[in-house]
């Protein structure tokens, strides 16, 4: 793949990477950067403003916010990564079925259309209300919400490639349907898919924080960016730092991912300059 070669020349891609790399390092090596536990209570230290000891201040229970935010990024990133991965697997499966077999298309596309008609977080809220708060359930909710979008992208490129001459040629020399699908069609869907994956990851971070903010995401006391902000809403007048820092982290992570996505799109598919898919990442 010449992603690396072109990537090193693409401004957006590089800026995105520069923004994200430190964040990933902080996230993975959280214990090195902070000596405080994200869940240990220390009531004497409650609601302290940012200082040299507590870089981001402390929350209502005296927990160090800096360590809550970096440990929170572990959870937010883990959930987003798991959701994106499962979404891609399912999206490719259903998308290629829908693109390849007309009968399957009938069912899969209709269901995807229906799911995409529901606004914003509604589906996520219903899933969380049904199954209860847990990390696995958030992932499941996001998979239900995002898979239809991946299905559409994969389906569209499968249909486009299916009509090309080299597919007929493969049929003529006797390749089986499965072989055509896996070895001749799917490799060509990778470019649009890679772009979708970065945007999907950014979207997942926003959705996780949105659901946690509504009290339907990562269950406390484990920190996640969304539930730290949600905890902070009571103290918006007295201790605004509780919600400011996790929000900044979300903004940094999502900006980085979006830039990488834009960069990848320019690298992989110069024809696709339309940014309309970005609407997916602004959640209601």
């Amino acid at each position: 793949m010449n992603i690396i070669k072109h990537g090193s020349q693409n401004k957006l891609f590089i800026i995105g990477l520069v923004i994200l790399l430190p964040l990933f390092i902080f996230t993975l090596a959280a214990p090195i950067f902070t000596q405080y536990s994200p869940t240990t209570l220390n009531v004497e230290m409650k609601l302290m403003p940012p200082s040299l000891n507590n870089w981001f201040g402390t929350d209502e229970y005296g927990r160090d916010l800096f360590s809550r935010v970096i440990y929170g990024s572990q959870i937010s990133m883990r959930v987003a990564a798991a959701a994106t991965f499962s979404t891609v697997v399912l999206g490719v499966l259903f998308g290629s079925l829908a693109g390849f077999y007309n009968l399957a298309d009938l069912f899969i596309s209709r269901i995807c259309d229906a799911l995409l008609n529901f606004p914003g977080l509604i589906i996520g809220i219903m899933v969380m209300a049904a199954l209860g708060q847990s990390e696995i359930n958030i992932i499941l909710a996001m998979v239900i919400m995002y898979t239809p979008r991946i299905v559409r992208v994969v389906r569209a490129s499968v249909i486009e490639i299916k009509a090309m001459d080299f597919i007929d040629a493969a049929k003529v020399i006797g390749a089986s349907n499965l072989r055509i699908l896996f070895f001749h069609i799917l490799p060509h869907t990778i470019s649009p898919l890679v772009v979708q994956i970065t945007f999907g990851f950014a979207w997942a971070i926003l959705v996780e924080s949105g659901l946690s903010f509504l009290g339907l995401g990562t269950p406390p006391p484990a920190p996640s960016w969304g539930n730290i902000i949600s905890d902070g809403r009571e103290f918006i007048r007295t201790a605004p730092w509780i919600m400011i820092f996790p929000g900044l982290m979300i903004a940094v992570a999502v900006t980085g991912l979006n830039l990488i996505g834009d960069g990848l799109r320019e690298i992989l598919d110069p024809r696709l300059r339309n940014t309309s898919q970005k609407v997916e990442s602004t959640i209601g």
Partner: protein
Amino acid sequence: MWAYIISRLLSFIPTIFISVTIVFIFTRLLPGNPVWALVGDQSVSAEKIDEVVKMMGYDRPIFIQYLEWLPKILSGDLGNSVFYKEPVLEVILNRVPVTFSLAILSLIITVIIAIPLGITAAVHQNTWMDNLCVAITNVWISLPSFWLGFLFIILFSVNLGWLPSSGYRELSFGFEDWIKRLILPILSMSLAHIALLVRVTRSSMIEVLENEYVVTARAKGLSKYKIIYKHALRNALVSILTVVGLIFALNLGGSIIIENIYALPGLGQLVATAALRRDYAIIEGGMLYFIVVALFVNLFIDISYSFFNPRIRFD
């Protein structure tokens, strides 16, 4: 044209049918039922609960419930809310003014600000103005709306004391009271959409401005203004309108998060609370509303393409 509209309207039927079926399955999969949620913490004997469940028919097989429910909902009878003790349609209609005020005002602000900005950025491509625009929108689009909402409250309500931080007043109490409580929600709702629309306007304008007919127009001495607004913008409008439609449909769905932050009694809040309380009828009615709104907004946008760009015809 009319044939097109009618065929589109007919195609709504299967989509609505599938959507309501998904909603039905979803709601019945929620563990517990409205009766349990109604009882809450009160001490009521299990027999009594079973009796009420039986009376309301929630103990029958899902398929039977579905067969009974489907013709009702498709004919527009949404039933009664267990919690509000009112017809669902009325509960929803009560919330519509809040959501509509927010949706329409926010869309107007978005369009007024975003399209000129996008055009300016495209016309001055690769200058500092354009770069600034791209950089700002890139960051802006990534900010979580609930976080922005809080920052606005901290700034405008807590520190400056200019605007109330939450609540809703009906328009009948006077325009000032009404708009004051909507400014912050509208701002937090619009900003991400503005960033999005600026980007779309910019990229589609750039694409159009590269066309040869723009060069021709310039060569024959048309003014810059005419080229941009009469030739280029019209052709760029298709992708711009698509996104405007998406934004409007999103807005009309009511933003659960914005309504939550500013304590606005809108539709997003209504359906979200209903999901937590297992208020089946409200969930179903609300979802049906979302679907119908999305379908009609899309249809309207598709029709408007041909109005702005006469080359697009529907046969």
